[in-house]
């Protein structure tokens, strides 16, 4: 046990087993990003997957919206200690987008409009674990929450769920993204409290 702070009682808002260690429930939807919100016109929007072999798979907005979608309800965990339970999304599973992608790469570098990047192992994007989401709580996804479309990878801290997603580069080697370069954890599992590098 760490140092005790004299007179600190704490609020103990209930031990919810759905909350990872060090997380607190919020009813709001916190907005966290490193810069201003980019505006991406839909007629110029595209999403790409670039393989390690140089092949590019490309979808424009209509093509993305024409793909079969899912409506996951998931808990999200922000590294700044906010968690929000039962958030409702609609989007395309990355399994659908990866159907025709030939790759042996192990790593993915996700990049966004506005220049944001984040990295994760490719396997964390597959098998029903990740989506390109374009609707939230029954509405089109607002720009400040990552609209027109964001990555949704709820099993990792939410900075991995890149807003304003533009594409995924597949790589044979792990390449740290924006926050990962700035000292945040490379993987970011909230259940193991992997907030900062070395955790």
């Amino acid at each position: 046990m760490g140092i005790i702070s004299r007179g600190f009682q704490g609020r103990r808002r209930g031990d919810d087993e759905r909350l990872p260690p060090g997380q607190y429930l919020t009813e709001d939807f916190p907005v966290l990003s490193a810069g201003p919100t980019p505006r991406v016109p839909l007629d110029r929007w595209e999403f790409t997957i670039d393989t390690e072999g140089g092949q590019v798979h490309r979808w424009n907005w209509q093509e993305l919206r024409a793909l079969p979608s899912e409506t996951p309800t998931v808990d999200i965990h922000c590294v700044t200690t906010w968690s929000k339970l039962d958030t409702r999304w609609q989007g395309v599973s990355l399994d659908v987008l990866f159907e025709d992608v030939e790759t042996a790469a192990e790593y993915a570098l996700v990049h966004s409009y506005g220049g944001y990047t984040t990295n994760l192992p490719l396997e964390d994007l597959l098998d029903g674990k990740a989506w390109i989401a374009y609707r939230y709580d029954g509405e089109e996804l607002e720009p400040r929450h990552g609209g027109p479309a964001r990555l949704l990878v709820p099993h990792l801290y939410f900075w991995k769920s890149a807003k304003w997603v533009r594409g995924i580069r597949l790589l044979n080697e792990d390449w740290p993204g924006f926050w990962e370069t700035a000292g945040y954890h490379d993987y970011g599992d909230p259940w193991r409290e992997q907030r900062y590098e070395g955790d």
Partner: protein
Amino acid sequence: MARLTWRPARLVKVREETASARTLVFDVPGWPGHLPGQHVDVRLTADDGYTARRSYSLAGPDGVELTVQRVDDGEVSPYLTEVMRPGDELEVRGPVGGWFVWRPANPAPVLLVAGGAGVVPLMAMLRARRASRSATPFRLVYSVRSPEQLYYADELAAPDPGVDVSVVYTRTAPDGEARPAGRLTAADLGPSGEADCYVCGPTGFVEAAAGLLLELGHDPARVRTERFGPTGE
């Protein structure tokens, strides 16, 4: 980077900033130093082992000095602002964050935009500028509800060559203030030439202020933001 470890921090000094905010100066043996704009994670432990943890910006260029706004129904900020006394201890780890920082060696003009407690990391930048005798032009636009909410009032009112401070009152302006009370507008931020912009405050404020900066033509790649919380002014 080495693993960030929790370090004991003993409160040595307290300064009241407003009726609901105070500055806490801690003695943290082994503190590795930090860049202005970075923050620490604070951990409080109750005598039965229960812990709570929050982030607080470092208010000065040296040592661990925090300024905390009391959130009335909050868990941690009422403890820090009302219960904690000099001699009491908590734990900190950091410094955290390598993006929302100002480096004194950078000669580009700086525009700081603060909403409420968001002034804290920006004050660290202003203080670092002064400490490093930098001549880089700085402008601070500081939005607060009323004159009673102003942090660091005397320090900000003292002349500091090359630094321009304007306070924007959103609810109540002091007597003699030409600008009527109201939300931050593009006019409050302009005219301004090219600058590295740092925007900090509650989420809604940051969204609005960063949007105004883009409207004024600032390069999005030079607008850095830090959001303190989900709600509030």
